[in-house]
């Protein structure tokens, strides 16, 4: 009774490509749902009862059900036929978090019971769309950083009676920029002076992270255990997290901790940059082969995060 086509069948059917998906006879597929088969069984049962009892009531209802099924085949197909879908410009998002992916759906007459699915997610209902253009937001959870394309997108409908499922699969053409998942953890701080010296001397980055904590706040779930004030905890003063603040007002550059696996180090760095941005501090980024001078503001943050998302 599921409303999707058998996965084995879907796998064998070609995936639609291109900037715009225009649904029509060549790229729409339709098969009966499990409920459709059950409906057919119910109609045949009524036909048998009608024959056995020579009753016109059962026979007419059987034929009405069959006629509805035949009609439904065309009506379900007609819901998606002529539908035109293209991608919007997706906003960057963080890996591991729900990302919004915009679509523009253009409907000629009307489309009812539209549903979509981005594997491995669940089926989502859109409802009925009137004629015209409708922005539609797909929600998905990217697993990795970089330029990622969700999908393939499956658009389907079972309206009006749920007897047939008509669908098409489309490989979304526009990639979405996905930043590393922000996870608190150790990062490496490169003081500006050292950085200047070293870059001048050897062109290499170095320096230590901030080791002086200035303040305490209650420990929150997700806070790194390395920031836990263990001494205070042992004294029975509760779980506190150390707040570090650069003792110098001079902006600093931040780099991934070389002792950690690269992806994990980037995630920690992403978190640190977001934190600094929230605090309104000036910061810069030092990556292998790429340095971004310290600065403030959203566009600076986005530049830094993009560098993190795309660094090799």
């Amino acid at each position, binding site marked *: *009774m*599921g*409303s999707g086509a058998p996965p084995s069948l879907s796998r064998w059917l070609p995936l639609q490509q291109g900037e715009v998906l225009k649904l029509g006879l060549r790229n729409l597929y339709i098969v009966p749902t*499990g*409920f459709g088969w*059950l*409906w057919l069984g*119910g109609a045949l*049962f*009524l036909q048998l*009862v009608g*024959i*056995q*009892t*020579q*009753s*016109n*009531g*059962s*026979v*007419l*209802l*059987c*034929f*009405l*059900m*069959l*006629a*509805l099924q*035949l*009609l439904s085949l*065309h009506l379900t197909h007609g819901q998606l036929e002529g539908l035109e879908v293209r991608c919007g410009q997706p906003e960057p998002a963080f890996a591991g978090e729900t990302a919004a992916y*915009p679509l523009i759906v253009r409907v000629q007459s*009307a489309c*009812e*019971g539209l549903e*979509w699915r981005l594997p491995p997610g*669940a*089926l*989502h*209902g*859109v*409802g*009925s*769309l*009137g*004629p*015209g*253009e*409708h*922005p*539609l*937001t*797909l*929600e998905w959870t990217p697993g990795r950083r970089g330029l990622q394309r969700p999908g393939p997108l499956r658009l389907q409908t*079972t*309206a*009006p*009676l*749920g007897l047939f499922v008509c669908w098409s699969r489309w490989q979304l053409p526009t990639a979405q920029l996905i930043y590393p998942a922000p996870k608190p953890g150790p990062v490496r701080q490169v003081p500006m002076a050292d950085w200047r010296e070293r870059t001048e001397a050897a062109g290499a980055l170095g320096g230590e992270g901030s080791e002086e904590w200035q303040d305490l706040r209650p420990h929150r779930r997700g806070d790194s255990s390395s920031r836990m004030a263990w001494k205070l905890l042992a004294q029975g003063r509760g779980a506190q997290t150390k707040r570090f603040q650069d003792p110098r007002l001079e902006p600093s550059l931040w780099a991934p901790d070389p002792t950690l696996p690269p992806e994990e180090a980037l995630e920690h760095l992403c978190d640190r940059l977001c934190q600094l941005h929230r605090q309104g501090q000036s910061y810069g980024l030092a990556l292998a082969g790429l340095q971004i001078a310290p600065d403030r503001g959203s566009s600076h943050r986005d530049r830094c995060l993009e560098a993190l998302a795309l660094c090799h």
Partner: protein
Amino acid sequence: MPLNVVPLKAVAVKSVALKRRGGWVPWLAMGLLTAAAWGVAPFSLLGGLSLSLLVLTALKLREAKQRREYRLVSLLQLVTAGLLGAQQAELGSSLLQGLAVLVALAGLLQLELGEVTNLGKLLRRSGQLVLAALPMALVLFLLFPRLGPFSDLGRLGQFGAAATTGLSTTLEPGTIATLTQDRSPAARVAFPGGGPPPASQRLWRVLVHGQFDGQSWRSLNAGTTEAGMAGADTAGADIAAGPDPSLGAPPTPGATQVWLSEPNGLPEVPWSGSGLPLDRHLKRDGQGQLRHDGSVGVRKLYSLAAEPALATWRRQAPTAQDLQMAAGTNPRLETLAAGWRRQGSGDAQAVEGAKAVEGAKAVALAEAWFRQQGFRYSLSNPLLPETAPLDALLFEQRQGFCGHYASALSALMRAAGVPARVVSGYRGGTWVVPLGGSAFLDLRQSDAHAWSEVWIAGEGWRTVDPTLWVLGGQTPADDPAAASVQAASTGADRAGPLDWVARQWWGLDLAWGEWWLGFDQRSQERLLQRLLGPYRDWAGALLLVAVALTLALGLAAYGWLRRRGEGDRLQQELNQLLRSCARGGLVPMPGETLGQFGQRLRQARPLLGPELEDFVGLLQQLRYGRPGAPQRQGLDRLSRCGQSLRRQLRRSPS
């Protein structure tokens, strides 16, 4: 206001996870099905199956959470409606079943369309779907080859019977008197293509009581037939014919009697005693009883065709059973009959062992004797004694009702050596011509009657009604019961206002029955012969073409209905006016608002002025006005205004 631009929605369409609730629409369908199941015999196979399915569906609906579970519920509701349709074909039940189907489909639509919660809107959508599918369903119904039943499992409804009021298989004094006081409906009969028989011939037989034990008359077909008494029953099997259901049989004429019989607790149903059964469930037996092998606890709708020759049962020779007499139980009656026997045989000396008197002569003697005795018709009679009850009736009490007199006459005939029996059924009925539907004869339980049948050599079984002899010398005013019998025989009406309403409904019910039951395997064969003539073999191709055409028609009709019934009424009204303007060469300029276009139109067509102003004002008020304004009245006004403007534009196009 943009004139014909579909605005881009500012907010992205919100997606929702698919976990929809069925709401209360499926429960409404359950309620309708429960009402439609009223009166179904719970102990019959089909009845039990339908009721079990109904309960299971309700339980499933109660626990349903997912869309697929609600879908299953809707399907079960449809199947239940189909099962009920197989058992109850009257108009009221059929309407309820149809409504339940419509609501079950509305439940399915709600699951798919999601946000539609308005029942009226859902029902309209459901009706549009059914209307679109109906032409194809009717084509299949009319042209798809009909099959006969697979086996005797056709008697699906024959288990058990809930006895209700009605005639009894045992005729004892008092039984029919009780019925006479009951004004509840017994049956309705319509006569398609003709009027009712004359009032004097309106005798509707149900049961034949052939077994007499000196006190009561029993029907032999009551299911307790004793060995050695089965002559009448087995003889009946030979004539239980009806037309040959095979397709090669010559076409039979259409129905001349359509009956709708209330439950009477018996398999025997009323009929005129003449007619070919058109229903496979109907069987005639050798005694002239018509049996319906459906469930006995439900209403029965059946039809009969005209029978060209005398009914076979009338010529069915009597058996020893029809002469059986418990000798000595009513000695004075036997002495009287012996006297007739002597008169009939012409041997005044022979008392014992005289030959049987000829039937017609015996009837004539009995009539003369009955008319002389001054019998009185009465429903309030003292109980008859257990010994020699008929002697007490005829020679002491001298008052009684139809059952008494029919019993006495049949016993007298048997004692005189003439085969005779008692028949019970109904007499008369009221001819009702409703405002709509079929005219019909309305039979009430108070029309219950009993009479005799006497075997006349060379003629067969003759109907003899001694009650009419008794009533011959009595005015109806003497006795209400007698008045009832006479009114029935003359067709006089005694209806109250409620009866009038009920009769209008029954008229429609019977018209539905005529049409609905009239179509069967034979009717389909006749239709195909008429449509295709010598090209009968092309029926399959005809069916395919008809299905394709009706599918296209259904799709077109559905599209039209959807466009007509849905959408933005304001935009529709505006578009209609713009089309009319365009025919006169007035088209909105790019970027022109409605107000600006209205001004330009007023300048071009000064006559439209005030109405055009109204139209634009109303449209803008309805589109942008404060919510809560009387929307419907406003729409109606706008529609009237638009009509008037279009009319004026047609009259002066330039």
